[in-house]
C-alpha cells in the first residue's frame, strides 16, 4: 500500500505561506512576497501532480474500481460517540481531479498576479489571501466528512469576501464583498440544516459510510417521512441550497456578477475556476445519496441547473462590462454541470452525466480561468472594464488575442478544443434522460457561442478607440500563464474521463455520438456566425434587434431586476420592517416595561414621602397613637 500521508502538505503549504505572508509580509519587498507565495503554490502543484499520478496509475484498483483512500485522519471535535468532526485527507477520483484543477489554476493565477498586481498597495496581503483561499479550497475537496467540508466551505467564503473587498477603499467593492458573503452565508444556512438533518438520520458525518450505496446510512434514512418527503430528500435539498449559493445558481446567483469588483486574478481563480464549482463538487460528493435516497432532490438540481444556464446566458448577451459577461457565462456553464449531475444515474453508462459534469468542471476551469486572465490583461492594457470603450485590440495584444480566441472556441464547443468534449457528454446525458432539458441546453450552447464571440469581436475587432496611452502587451510573467492555460484549454478534452472519474469509480465505455455532436457544433457555429455579422464591423444591426426585443431586452439588461428584488427584501423588508421595529420594540416596549417599573416605584415613593413631613409633632402623634393602638390590640383585643 502506498503511503499518501504526504498529501497533507498539499494543503498545509498554502496555510503556512498564508501565515508567513500574513504576519511578516510587510517585512519583505512586495515582489519577494509574491515570489514566495507563488513558489509555495508550485510545491503544492508538484505534489498534487505526483499524487494524481500515484493514485490513478500506481495504486492497485479494488475490483476494478479506484479505491477511496483515507490518507490521513484525526478527530478534531467530538459531539457524540458517532458524530465527530474529523480533519483528514480523502483521496478518490474527484478529489484528486480537483487537487489538480485547484493547484494548477491557483499556481497560474499566482504567477500572473506577480505581474498584474505590480505596484498595487497591499501586494503581500493579496498573496496571503490567495494562499488562504487555496488552502481552504484544497481542504474543501479533500474533506473526509461533510462537516470538514462545511468548515472549509465557510473558509473559502471568507477568503472570497476578503479578496472581493481587496480594494477596500472603493465603496462598490465593499458592498460587493458584503453581498457575496451574506448571500452565500444564507445558502450555507441551508447546508448546515441539511447536515443537521443528516446527522440525525444517518448518525454519521463520514463521507465513506454516508455515500456507500449499500451502507446502512443510505438504507435507513430514506424511510422516515416529513411533510410528504423523506428526511433524506429534505436533507439533500438543503445541502443543495448550500451548493447553489456557492455555485451562484438561480435564485442565489446575485452575488457573482458583483463579485467582479475584486482584482481580476481573483475572479479567475475563485469566481470562475474553483470556488464556484464547489457546489457542483458538493453534489458530486453526495451523489450516491442523491441518486438512491433523494431522487426528488436530484430533479431539483437538474431543473435549477438548466434554468440558471439559460437565464445567465440570456443576461450575458446584454452586458457591457466584460468581466460581468464572463461572470454570467460562468453561471451558465455551472448550470450545465449541475444539470448533468441532475440527469445522471448511478453506475456504468447510467452515470454518464456524472462523468460529464466532472469533465466539464475540469475543462471549464482551464478555459474560464484563461478567459478571465485574458480579460485581466486587456483591462491592464486599456484601464476600463467596458467593451464599449474597447475595439481593435488584436494588433496591440497579439498573445492575449490568440489565447482569448482559443478560450472562446473552447467554451463555444468547437472541436478539438476542450469544451467540445465535455459539453457534448453533457448534452448526450441530457438527451438520454430528459428531452426538455436537452432542448434548453442545446439552445444555451448557441447563445453561449454568440455572446462569447460578441465579446471577442467587440474587444479585438471593431473600430479602434481613442486610448489615453497606447495599449501594450502584458509582461511575460502574465502571458506565460495565458499560454500554458491555452494549452490546457486545447488538450484538457483529451483526458479519458470515463476511465478515471465516474460515479461508481469503475471505468465504462463511451464514444462521441455523432447524432448529438454534429447538431451542437452546428448551433455553435450559428452563434458565432451571428456574432460575426453583428459585431465584426460596426453595424446598426444589434440596435435594431434590441429595439425589436423591447422590454425583454431591458429586463435582461437589468438582470431581470433580481438585484432590485433582493434590495427590496433586505432593505425594505428586513431592515425597515423587521429590524427597525425590533429595535423600536426593544427600546420602547421591553425597556419601557423596565423603565415603567422604575417610574411606578418613583411616583409611589413621591406620593408617600409626604409622610416624612419633617413635622416633629406629627411624628410624635403617630408614635403615640400607634403605641396606644398596639397596646389596645395586644392587651385587650388579642386575648379576647
Amino acid at each position: 500500500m502506498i503511503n499518501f500521508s504526504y498529501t497533507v502538505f498539499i494543503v498545509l503549504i498554502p496555510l503556512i505561506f498564508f501565515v508567513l505572508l500574513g504576519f511578516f509580509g510587510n517585512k519583505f519587498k512586495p515582489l519577494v512576497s509574491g515570489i514566495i507565495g507563488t513558489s509555495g503554490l508550485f510545491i503544492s502543484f508538484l505534489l498534487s501532480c505526483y499524487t494524481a499520478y500515484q493514485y490513478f496509475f500506481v495504486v492497485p484498483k479494488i475490483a476494478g474500481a479506484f479505491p477511496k483512500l483515507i490518507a490521513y485522519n484525526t478527530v478534531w471535535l467530538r459531539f457524540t460517540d458517532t458524530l465527530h468532526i474529523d480533519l483528514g485527507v480523502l483521496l478518490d477520483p474527484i478529489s484528486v481531479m480537483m487537487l489538480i484543477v485547484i493547484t494548477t489554476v491557483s499556481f497560474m493565477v499566482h504567477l500572473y498576479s506577480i505581474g498584474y498586481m505590480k505596484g498595487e498597495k497591499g501586494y503581500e496581503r493579496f498573496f496571503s489571501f490567495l494562499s488562504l483561499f487555496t488552502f481552504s479550497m484544497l481542504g474543501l475537496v479533500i474533506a473526509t466528512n461533510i462537516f470538514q467540508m462545511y468548515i472549509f466551505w465557510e473558509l473559502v467564503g471568507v477568503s472570497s469576501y476578503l479578496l472581493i473587498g481587496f480594494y477596500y477603499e472603493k465603496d462598490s467593492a465593499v458592498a460587493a464583498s458584503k453581498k457575496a458573503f451574506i448571500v452565500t452565508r444564507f445558502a450555507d444556512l441551508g447546508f448546515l440544516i441539511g447536515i443537521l438533518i443528516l446527522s440525525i438520520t444517518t448518525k454519521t458525518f463520514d463521507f465513506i459510510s454516508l455515500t456507500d450505496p449499500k451502507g446502512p446510512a443510505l438504507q435507513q434514512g430514506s424511510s422516515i417521512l416529513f411533510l410528504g418527503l423523506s428526511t433524506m430528500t429534505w436533507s439533500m435539498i438543503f445541502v443543495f441550497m448550500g451548493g447553489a449559493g456557492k455555485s451562484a445558481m438561480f435564485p442565489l446567483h446575485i452575488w457573482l456578477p458583483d463579485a467582479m469588483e475584486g482584482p481580476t486574478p481573483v475572479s479567475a481563480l475563485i469566481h470562475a475556476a474553483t470556488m464556484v464549482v464547489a457546489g457542483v463538487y458538493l453534489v458530486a460528493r453526495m451523489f450516491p445519496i442523491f441518486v438512491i435516497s433523494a431522487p426528488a432532490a436530484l430533479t431539483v438540481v437538474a431543473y435549477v441547473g438548466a434554468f440558471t444556464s439559460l437565464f445567465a446566458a440570456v443576461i450575458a448577451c446584454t452586458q457591457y462590462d466584460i468581466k460581468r459577461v464572463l461572470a454570467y457565462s460562468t453561471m451558465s456553464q455551472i448550470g450545465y454541470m449541475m444539470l448533468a449531475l441532475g440527469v445522471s444515474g448511478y453506475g456504468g453508462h447510467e452515470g454518464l452525466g456524472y462523468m460529464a459534469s466532472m469533465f466539464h468542471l475540469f475543462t471549464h476551469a482551464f478555459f474560464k480561468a484563461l478567459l478571465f486572465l485574458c480579460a485581466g490583461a486587456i483591462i491592464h492594457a486599456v484601464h476600463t472594464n467596458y467593451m464599449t470603450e474597447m475595439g481593435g485590440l488584436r494588433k496591440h495584444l497579439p498573445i492575449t488575442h490568440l489565447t482569448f480566441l482559443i478560450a472562446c472556441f473552447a467554451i463555444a464547443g468547437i472541436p478539438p478544443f476542450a469544451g467540445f468534449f465535455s459539453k457534448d457528454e453533457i448534452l448526450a446525458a441530457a438527451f438520454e434522460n430528459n428531452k426538455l432539458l436537452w432542448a434548453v441546453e442545446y439552445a444555451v450552447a448557441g447563445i453561449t457561442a454568440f455572446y462569447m464571440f460578441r465579446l471577442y469581436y467587440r474587444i479585438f475587432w471593431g473600430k479602434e478607440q481613442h486610448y489615453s496611452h497606447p495599449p501594450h502587451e502584458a509582461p511575460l510573467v502574465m502571458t506565460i500563464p495565458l499560454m500554458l492555460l491555452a494549452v490546457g484549454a486545447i488538450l484538457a478534452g483529451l483526458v479519458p474521463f470515463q476511465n478515471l472519474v465516474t460515479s461508481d469509480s469503475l471505468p465504462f465505455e463511451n464514444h462521441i455520438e455523432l447524432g448529438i455532436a454534429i447538431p451542437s457544433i452546428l448551433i455553435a457555429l450559428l452563434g458565432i456566425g451571428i456574432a460575426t455579422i453583428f459585431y465584426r464591423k460596426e453595424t446598426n444591426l444589434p440596435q435594431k434587434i434590441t429595439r425589436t426585443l423591447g422590454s425583454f431586452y431591458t429586463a435582461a439588461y437589468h438582470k431581470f431586476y433580481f438585484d432590485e428584488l433582493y434590495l427590496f427584501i433586505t432593505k425594505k423588508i428586513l431592515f425597515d420592517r423587521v429590524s427597525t421595529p425590533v429595535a423600536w420594540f426593544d427600546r420602547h416596549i421591553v425597556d419601557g416595561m423596565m423603565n415603567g417599573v422604575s417610574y411606578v416605584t418613583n411616583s409611589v415613593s413621591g406620593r408617600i414621602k409626604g409622610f416624612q413631613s419633617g413635622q416633629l409633632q406629627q411624628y410624635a402623634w403617630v408614635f403615640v397613637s400607634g403605641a396606644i393602638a398596639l397596646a389596645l390590640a395586644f392587651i385587650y383585643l388579642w386575648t379576647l
Partner: protein
Amino acid sequence: MFEGVPLTWFLIVATIMFFIGIYGFLVRKNLITILMSLELILNSVNINFVAFNKLLYPQHMEGMFFTVFVIAVAAAEASVAIAIIINIYRRLINIDVERIDEMKY
C-alpha cells in the same frame, strides 16, 4: 410602710400628668414649651418609680436611685436641648417646631 394612700392613686396621678405632658408635647409650638412638657413626662415617671419603691418594695432603694439618675439625665438633656434651641434661634430667629422641617424627605 406607708398608710392611707393606695399605690393606685399615685399611679393615676402620674398617668394624668404623663398624658398632660404628651398633650403639651403634641400641641405646643414653641420648642421651650415642648421641653417643659417633656419635663412633666419625666416627672410623672419619677413619681411612679418612687411610689412603687415605697409601697411595694420598701426594703430596697432601686426606685429612688432610678429617680436620681433620671433627674441627672433630665438635667443633662435639658442643658443640651437648650443649647440646641439657642443655636437654632441664632440661625433661624424663631424656635417654632413647625418651621423646623429642613430634614424632611
